[in-house]
């Protein structure tokens, strides 16, 4: 699954030839003993991250993403399974002997050292010659745009600057992989968005594998080559951002990434390659490439921006359902409509604010919703 989907979406960072993956997790399980009970934080994760990839572990808090990252870093020992870095089994290697570096959520800058000493810390531990330390620390501070602040103490700097010091302190060691644990969580929205672009630029510049832990789906979608969506200790889907957004594999992924509508029904018939769900009042939902047969129960998702809202019955060949507008929210760039279907289900529709705003539906209007068959995506239950 991982290999075939690496090429979709932004293909630029996917490996050209098969090579040793930067990071491999093989059946990794992490169990804790809490109040005499065994709790599984990670329930068996197998994945491989390619050299130079920007890879995100995305999920809600408690899904096991941070524990997974900490097992890569070496701060947690897996209860079962194997961790490999560049083909070498490092499952029992302590963090100070692993060729990966971590950027902590709290930055964890050494408060009694200035910026220069913080960044040089890793190189000093490796007995790097002083001249080389000087050169590399200087270069790295240039990359993160902190030249001239070498003598500052961490607490004399803003959150964004501290963030960049933390990044420099890890990058300067030229690790095989950089692990980032919600590094932008403490920054405000504007700065966070600027740092997302900055991180992506730095990653391209240095070409190091990034493993990025976040609960923020837009952050993961913006920056990643591939995303592993985690839920309850398991990887629910591992694919490119586009794939994950357009074709969520499970109801959880559909719900966690963006806004999504779930429509449940039973396949009525199969018509020219489309499974057809018959709904009340003449509505129908078409599902492309479905390998379903008549009588099968089915759940489909459709994204709010794929749906067109109209007052007249749409042409054939489209999914079309009827409903009543129950709420209209003006959001600047687009309007968000809540449309209640005959069976009581509510569907969210985003409609871009076009020049002709007179055609928009009002609250209480009876409307048709329509979308292309390939925008209905059947998901596993």
């Amino acid at each position, binding site marked *: 699954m991982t290999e075939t989907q690496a090429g979709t979406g932004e293909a630029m960072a996917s490996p050209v030839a098969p090579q040793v993956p930067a990071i491999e997790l093989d059946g990794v399980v992490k169990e804790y003993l809490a109040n005499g009970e065994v709790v599984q934080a990670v329930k068996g994760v197998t994945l491989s991250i390619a050299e130079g990839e920007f890879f995100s572990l995305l999920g809600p808090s408690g899904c096991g993403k941070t524990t997974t990252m900490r097992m890569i870093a070496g701060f947690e020992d897996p209860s079962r399974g194997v961790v490999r870095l560049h083909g070498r089994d490092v499952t029992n290697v302590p963090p100070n002997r692993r060729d990966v570096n971590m950027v902590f959520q709290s930055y964890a800058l*050494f408060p009694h050292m200035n910026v220069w000493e913080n960044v040089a810390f890793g190189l000093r531990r490796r007995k790097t010659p002083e001249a080389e330390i000087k050169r590399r620390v200087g270069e790295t501070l240039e990359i993160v745009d902190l030249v001239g602040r070498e003598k500052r103490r961490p607490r004399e700097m803003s959150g964004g600057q501290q963030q960049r010091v933390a990044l420099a302190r890890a990058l300067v*060691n030229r690790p095989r992989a950089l692990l980032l644990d919600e590094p932008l969580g403490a920054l405000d929205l504007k700065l966070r968005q600027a740092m997302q672009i900055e991180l992506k630029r730095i990653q391209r510049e240095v070409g190091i594998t990034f493993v990025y832990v976040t609960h923020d789906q837009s952050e993961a979608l913006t920056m990643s080559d591939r995303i592993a969506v985690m839920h309850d200790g398991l990887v629910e889907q591992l694919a490119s951002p586009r794939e994950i957004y357009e074709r969520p594999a499970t109801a959880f992924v559909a719900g966690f990434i963006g806004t999504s509508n779930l429509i449940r029904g039973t396949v009525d018939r199969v018509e020219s390659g489309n499974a057809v769900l018959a709904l009340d009042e003449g509505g129908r939902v078409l599902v492309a490439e479905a390998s379903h047969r008549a009588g099968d129960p089915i759940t489909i998702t459709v994204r709010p921006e794929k749906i067109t809202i109209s007052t007249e019955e749409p042409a054939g060949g489209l999914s079309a359902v009827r409903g009543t507008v129950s709420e209209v929210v003006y959001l600047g760039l687009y309007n968000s409509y809540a449309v209640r279907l005959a069976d009581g289900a509510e569907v969210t529709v985003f409609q871009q604010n076009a020049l002709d705003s007179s055609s928009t539906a009002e609250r209480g209007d009876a409307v048709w919703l329509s979308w292309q068959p390939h925008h209905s995506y059947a998901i596993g239950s």
Partner: protein
Amino acid sequence: MTGKLGDRLLHGYTWLIIAWLTAPIIVMIMFGFNDKQSKSNTSWQGFTFRWYGELFADSSLTGALVNSLQVAVVSTVLTTVIGTALGLALGRHRFRGRGVSNFLVFAAISTPELVMGASLLSLFVSGNTPRGLATITIAHVLFSLSFVVVTVRARVVGLDPSLEEAARDLGAGTWTTFRLVTLPAIMPGVLAGALLAFALSIDDYVVTSFVNGNQLTFPLWIMGSVKVGIPPQVNVMGTLIFGIGVAIAIANAVASRRRA
């Protein structure tokens, strides 16, 4: 108008408190310069530097002071090392006996000194341990340990655990991490604890008087000479100890403000 009056009252009150706290110290310092002729050093008879010149004239007093300093230095070093380790463990790790240890730390602070002194004496007597500087030092470690533990533990609890992880992540082993990251981070707590331990040791009378055997410390010597008249050298030594203490406290405050 009322605001002005309130300000004046507050100023007056503040100065009253300051006078209240410093008057005994000022008197102590002053009588170190008293050119006294009689045996007692309680009435002002003129200014002199004589006692500074004859500071070590009384060899038994000097011996007691040396004993006190020796005990204070050794017990402070021991207390700081053991207390820092204990404070780190109690602040950072969860382990069997942690609750009991925390309770014992508290119990050692709240035990009356008389009880502690008496029970230590019976312990040493029943163990046939000869009383002397060693037993005094052991006793001082015992009653000052908890203060170091408490100050270090408070600092450790407030410490971001990912600091040490970051050091490990950057290639530092356990000892290097402790030396370069953990210890500097908890240093204000360690220093404050050490100062407390030294101050508690140098002026302890009650516990020391139970376990001293035939050795005299500075406080014991002074108490012994109360009836015959305290010589001005005691004031001079008190002044010097006070001065050093104030200097160290100021240095620590400045350093921790720079570090914090």
